[in-house]
């Protein structure tokens, strides 16, 4: 058993420490028994287990409420969902885990989004595909604890031993005595029972699962299809005004002056003012706020704003300049990340060498729900309704911005119209708080789509000069990656922009060198779905295919050869046996090797990220005008046992569509510090008619379950690019592939 946390870290501010601790502890875990392991994982997951494992010595009478996740009274069962719902399905899957061990009748359970309370719930966030692995054990124990108390209460009432009783569908059953009692009837008696130590409650074995692994529809679906106000943008507070905020299009610019009087005289305008901000892109950058009676008045006024910007400190980032520098840098060596064996000697003694410069552009998150937040600052308190992935961080940052203690902030979690990493950062929350404070009224801050694209924290572009060698038998003997990335200062690569020893084929090839050079970049870059992996997967899996093709070999065979014997690569790395398992399954299901005719080909790619082992095979046709049609994508995933089959399949299909969308035509370019794209007409997200058939398969291994929000993304682009090569003999080395003249048919 291992904690597979490769490339998960750094996605959530403040989590680094937790991951570091997890890493330090992970090496010991192999030596521990299961019981000790659980204690330890409790500690490494931010004190979560300890928090859950600190029950009241005696629950009070009334509802059964032994922990933060379960509430049972005579009216029914309520389960609390602790983490933000951003489309990854955790508002359904996390309570399902509790319900399984509780043996609750899922069809009658009421699921409610929990409050933000670190003492009850530990860290609450949506990031790093961590919700399932971090909460799996504690949620099972929360459900089993409540179940034990219900069974105990029934046993006491009936004067029988608890071990003679069973549970099913929210009933405790005495088969011998021919009687049963519902959890609701038993709740208040159960609340009188001592709360058992969650670490010692008995858990089900996998074959006893009734609910987990089934297809369960999302708990919000009834409300969603009726347009109920679930999202951040749907919130309102009595007396609320509508705010917009205009910042300098080049980060670092400040408003010298603005036509505030003119703006205030416009119809429906309540107030307009300059905010100095904190000059931190994750809090409040300087800008001009407009507060209006409705959104339309605010948007109209925003269009009429005339701001004179002081751009002395403003950024001048330029993508074309970065491209030119990267070309130069790629010819020289950078600082070493990995240096195994002797790459130079391998190149010298090789039968053949292969080289190529891989490039990928910056991209934006483009959540469909533009950033927004409802805030009310009054009497030294702040009330927030925020679509954020990191509610705890939102409380801390906004408290700091308005100058109060975090205890004075109440944050209500809302459903998020997409996350993808964008909402790990709470700039829009801080802005809403600052605007409410200044205006003295409750406000809903609404970003436009143009704001969203101009003030994102982007997935950084990058450049990889790849060199590799093969011997006379067609075996790969050497691999070198000279990577040019970006830094937001201090030389440390931006989040998702740093290579590490674990990146494929780290630990798999004898002679391997990875070097890295970071270009200065002022525009903020940050986590974007499967940080790092979402681009490294493209580079390394494409280049592996290049080497296989140069050797005249089948790329599936070469991939399996590189993976080698089944083994665990370090505490945080992949298991090569699980990797080979999904590679073989995807190839088999896709019919790898069959004749597809001319102008059509298959490509395969595997990537390990966020503790998930995933392989994808793309079947692609390309015509003479470089029009690409993706006929089918076959996915094989090993993420341990599946919690919600419907949600899991949806995540993988969505990752394939997102992967395809992004690789085909998405690019954010910068000139003079400004983003050149402004709305969806220049950021063409994939539409229905271009969606391929997607066939998903799971290997349900017995490893602890891991998350699925991210790991399905990285293998898609290389699988498609390898298929394009198979169809045309042309190697694509740039993302998006529209830069190489391809378009979607």
């Amino acid at each position, binding site marked *: 058993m291992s904690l597979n946390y490769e490339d998960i870290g750094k996605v959530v501010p403040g989590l680094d420490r937790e991951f570091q601790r997890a890493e330090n502890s992970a090496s010991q875990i192999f030596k521990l028994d299961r019981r000790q392991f659980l204690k330890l994982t409790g500690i490494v997951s931010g004190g979560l287990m300890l928090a859950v494992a600190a029950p009241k010595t005696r629950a009070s009478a009334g509802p059964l409420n032994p922990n933060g996740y379960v509430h049972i009274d005579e009216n029914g069962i309520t389960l609390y969902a602790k983490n933000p719902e951003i489309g990854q399905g955790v508002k359904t899957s996390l309570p399902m885990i509790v319900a399984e061990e509780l043996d609750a009748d899922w069809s009658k359970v009421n699921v409610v989004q929990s409050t933000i309370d670190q003492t009850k719930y530990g860290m609450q966030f949506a990031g790093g595909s961590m919700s399932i692995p971090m909460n799996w054990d504690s949620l099972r124990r929360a459900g089993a604890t409540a179940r034990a108390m219900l069974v105990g209460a029934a046993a006491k009432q009936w004067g029988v031993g608890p071990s003679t009783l069973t549970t099913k569908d929210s009933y405790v059953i005495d088969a011998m005595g021919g009687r049963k009692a519902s959890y609701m009837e038993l709740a208040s008696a159960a609340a009188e029972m001592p709360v058992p130590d969650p670490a010692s409650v008995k858990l089900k074995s996998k074959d006893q699962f009734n609910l987990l692994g089934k297809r369960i*529809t999302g708990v919000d679906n*009834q409300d*969603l299809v*009726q*347009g109920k106000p679930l999202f951040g943008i749907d919130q309102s507070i009595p007396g609320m005004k509508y705010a917009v905020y205009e910042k300098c299009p080049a980060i670092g610019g400040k408003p010298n002056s603005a036509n505030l009087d003119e703006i205030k005289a416009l119809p429906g305008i309540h107030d307009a003012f300059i905010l100095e901000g904190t000059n931190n892109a994750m809090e409040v950058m300087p800008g001009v706020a407009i507060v209006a009676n409705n959104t339309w008045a605010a948007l109209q006024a925003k269009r009429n704003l005339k701001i004179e910007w002081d751009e002395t400190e403003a950024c001048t980032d330029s993508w074309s300049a970065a491209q030119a520098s990267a070309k130069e840098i790629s010819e020289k060596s950078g600082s070493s990340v990995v240096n195994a064996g002797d790459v130079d000697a391998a190149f010298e003694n090789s039968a053949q060498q292969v080289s190529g410069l891989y490039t990928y552009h910056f991209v934006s998150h483009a*959540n469909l729900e533009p950033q927004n937040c409802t805030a009310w600052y009054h009497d030294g308190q702040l009330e927030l309704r925020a679509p954020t992935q990191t509610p705890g961080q939102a409380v801390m940052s906004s408290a700091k911005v308005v100058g109060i203690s975090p205890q004075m902030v109440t944050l209500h979690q809302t459903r998020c*119209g997409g996350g993808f990493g964008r909402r790990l950062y709470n700039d829009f929350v801080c802005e809403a708080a600052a605007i409410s404070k200044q205006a003295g009224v409750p406000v809903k801050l609404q970003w436009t789509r143009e704001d969203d694209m101009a003030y994102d924290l982007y997935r950084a572009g990058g450049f990889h000069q790849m060199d590799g060698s093969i011997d006379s038998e067609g075996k790969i003997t050497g691999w070198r990656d000279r990577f040019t990335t970006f830094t937001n200062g201090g030389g440390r690569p931006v989040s998702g922009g740093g290579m590490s020893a674990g990146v494929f084929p780290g630990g798999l090839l004898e002679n391997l060198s990875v070097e890295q050079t970071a270009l200065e970049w002022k525009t903020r870059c940050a986590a974007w779905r499967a940080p790092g992996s979402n681009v490294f997967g493209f580079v390394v899996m494409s280049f592996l295919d290049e080497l296989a093709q140069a050797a005249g070999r089948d790329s599936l065979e070469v991939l399996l050869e590189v993976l080698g014997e089944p083994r665990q690569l370090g505490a945080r790395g992949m298991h090569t046996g699980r990797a080979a398992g999904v590679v073989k399954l995807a190839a088999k299901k896709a019919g790898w090797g069959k004749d597809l005719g001319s102008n059509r080909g298959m490509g395969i790619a595997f990537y390990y990220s966020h503790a998930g082992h995933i392989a994808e095979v793309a079947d692609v046709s390309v015509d003479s005008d470089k029009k690409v049609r993706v006929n089918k994508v076959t996915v094989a995933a090993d993420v341990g046992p599946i919690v919600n089959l419907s949600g899991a399949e949806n995540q993988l299909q*969505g990752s394939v569509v*997102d992967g395809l969308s992004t690789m085909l035509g998405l690019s954010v370019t910068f000139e003079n510090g400004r983003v050149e794209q402004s709305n969806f007409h220049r950021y063409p997200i994939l539409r229905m008619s271009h969606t391929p058939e*997607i066939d998903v398969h799971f290997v349900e291994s017995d490893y602890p379950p891991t998350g699925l929000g991210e790991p399905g993304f990285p293998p898609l682009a290389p699988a498609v690019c390898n298929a394009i090569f198979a169809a045309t003999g042309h190697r694509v080395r740039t993302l998006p592939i529209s830069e190489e003249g391809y378009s979607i048919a």
Partner: protein
Amino acid sequence: MKLKVNSETIDLDGLDPATPLLWVLRDEIGLVGTKFGCGISQCGACTVLVNGKATKSCSMPISGVGDSEVTTIEGLANEDGTLSALQQAWVDLDVAQCGYCQSGQIMAAEALLRSNPEPSDAEIDQALDPNLCRCGTYLRIKAAVKTAATNLQSAG
């Protein structure tokens, strides 16, 4: 000014006639099921029916609506309060991920099925291509439209 929404007539006073229907629905009437995604007719999140036709409410000024019938996602359920065939198919097939695009998708599908009760795959693509789903739920959307069409046929 009067607006007919979901079979009710609503009086609206003092509004800029250029205000897009989207913001009137959301800010003035409190029908927030219709979503804002782009503001320039590119994403379909704001799709409603105007006299039964799929319309991007972000780009339809209130002055242009006149006495047309507007239907929003809130007005789609059956008269007895049960979910319509499309809504039910969306729940049964667990279509949504984040769910933000889905009211627009359902409204576009509603317009399609009203005019074409047995759409082909290509016709579904054509009718729903204006609607983006950032989470990539297109396969399930298509399956739900077909399920609803089949259920309506067998019920009808």
